[in-house]
């Protein structure tokens, strides 16, 4: 494998997303402002109930991770389908680099763009809602955050290949996945509140465990609401992330071969 070629390809494909986040400030405003509105509603519910302040922090952290989930759904999973519509896909496929480089570039670029939004949400949480983050283990927090993103974007890479096979259905699947995942991941409440069986089911969504672990590490006084220990959650996320990335690699290869057999990698007019 030509490592330099693939690293350059990752950089090349990440570039439009990084530029997109910086060149169009209006996008950043709407992508940050609108999620904050829905998040603020939950914060005010907790305020009105006189719930511990940490619950407001749970929502802020949930809001941050939700932006990544939305990016995975709309910026990763659907992306190859859109690339096909614009003729970029056939150019990617006919180029010599590994196609995983394209997905990795999309993921890294997407992470960067979404992190800009995530940081904005954290700042709103700290300065507008006066949420105190008490970080007990910084490096573990960073490791869990990083591995959660790997697992989450690994899922996005997998979906990208599958959605390409499913075509237009992808749009509906995205919409179908959006709200249930908000609920199951415990975006606005600790996932433990769902009970054991639902919590276990929810753990198959990568950011459920990641969010739960990060909440434990930033709001230690509410550790009782933690589902599993952060170390165990990290271990599960590592396994999940590795599995999803490998599965994505297989799915991409399978999709490419199937598309070459069926003639579905390009639009008929291309």
């Amino acid at each position: 494998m030509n490592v330099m070629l693939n690293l350059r390809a990752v950089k090349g494909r990440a570039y439009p997303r990084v530029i997109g986040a910086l060149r169009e400030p209006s996008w950043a405003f709407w992508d940050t402002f609108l999620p904050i509105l829905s998040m603020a509603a939950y914060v005010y519910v907790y305020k009105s109930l006189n719930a511990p302040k940490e619950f407001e922090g749970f929502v802020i952290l949930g809001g941050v991770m939700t932006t990544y989930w939305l990016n995975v759904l709309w910026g990763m999973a659907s992306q190859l389908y859109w690339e096909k519509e614009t003729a970029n896909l056939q150019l990617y496929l006919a180029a010599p680099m590994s196609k995983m480089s394209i997905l990795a570039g999309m993921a890294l670029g997407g992470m960067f763009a979404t992190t800009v939004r995530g940081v904005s949400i954290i700042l709103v949480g700290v300065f507008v809602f006066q949420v105190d983050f008490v970080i007990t283990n910084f490096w573990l927090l960073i490791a869990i955050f990083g591995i959660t993103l790997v697992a989450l974007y690994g899922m996005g890479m997998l979906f990208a290949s599958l959605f390409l096979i499913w075509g237009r259905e992808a749009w509906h699947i995205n919409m179908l996945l959006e709200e249930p995942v908000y609920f199951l991941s415990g975006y606005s409440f600790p996932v433990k509140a769902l009970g054991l069986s639902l919590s276990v089911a929810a753990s198959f969504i990568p950011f459920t465990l990641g969010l739960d672990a990060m909440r434990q590490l930033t709001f230690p006084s509410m550790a009782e609401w933690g589902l599993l220990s952060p170390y165990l959650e990290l271990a599960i996320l590592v396994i999940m992330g590795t599995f999803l990335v490998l599965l994505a690699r297989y799915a991409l290869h399978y999709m490419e071969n199937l598309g070459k057999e069926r003639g579905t990698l390009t639009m008929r007019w291309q």
Partner: protein
Amino acid sequence: MDAITCENLGRLFKSKKRTVEALANVTISVKKGELFGLLGPNGAGKTTLIKVFTTLLLPTSGTAHVYGYDVTKDEKKIRPIINMVSGGEYSGYGLLTVKENLWMFSQFYGIPGKEADRRITTLLNRLNIAHMEKRKLRTLSTGERQRVNIIRAFMTEPKVVFLDEPTLGLDVETARLIRIFIREWLEHDPDHTVLLTTHYMMEADELCDRIAIIHQGKIVALDTPQALKNMVTKEISLKVDVYPEIGLDWLHSLDGIIGFKSKEMGGKVRVRAVVDGEQVVGDVLAGINERGGKIQYLQKEEPTLEDVFLKLTGRGLE
């Protein structure tokens, strides 16, 4: 070793309702340094053949090779040495500038940054769009965008370039510029090879060393443009403007008509026909008279590739 070859190549597209034979027993061989044209109407199988050679589509029968590499097994060896451009292509990202888009695509071929910069600048100058390098892609016209696509394909210094209707919908000036560029690129290195598809007969005639005429997935003729035109030297190529518009179905059954096409032109109809001898010209003119048509313009012409196509398939290219 030839640059591009295929033998008895076939491609079927199957759906629940029907099976379409896009390519049937196609055999061609393109030499290194050659500009080889595939001439045929829309839906003839030109794009399908390009997709097979560019490793985007598997053949259902036969074999295809690029630089000796099998398209079904050696895609990793083929992809670094080829590139492609399609007519009306909207690749790239509108948010990025022309130069940024080109740089991005250069990275997919592993070209180091400074070298990519050098190649992009040279080609932007060659195609007269250096002043647009900082413009966002979405602000370009179709012709400007196609020049960018051409640069995208040639900056990777491929050995073989596949051009699928590269001048489709372009203004005369841009199309001419692109044709000159392609010819110069070929002359720059004896190993450079181009496979070009087009349904513009003038383009095929002007550019190509050899031409394969493709119709309904089959190669119906293959030779140099002049040799193809020689196929119709015994016949007469006729252009007639008739007014008012009259029905022309009777031409189908007229003895000696090899092929014809007609085009309505605001109250009159232009007929282009290849006929077998002077006697048939008289029969055509008499037939028009009998049906109330008047001859506004009549010309016997030098045969063109379109006449060859008419002779071989009985229909026009467009």
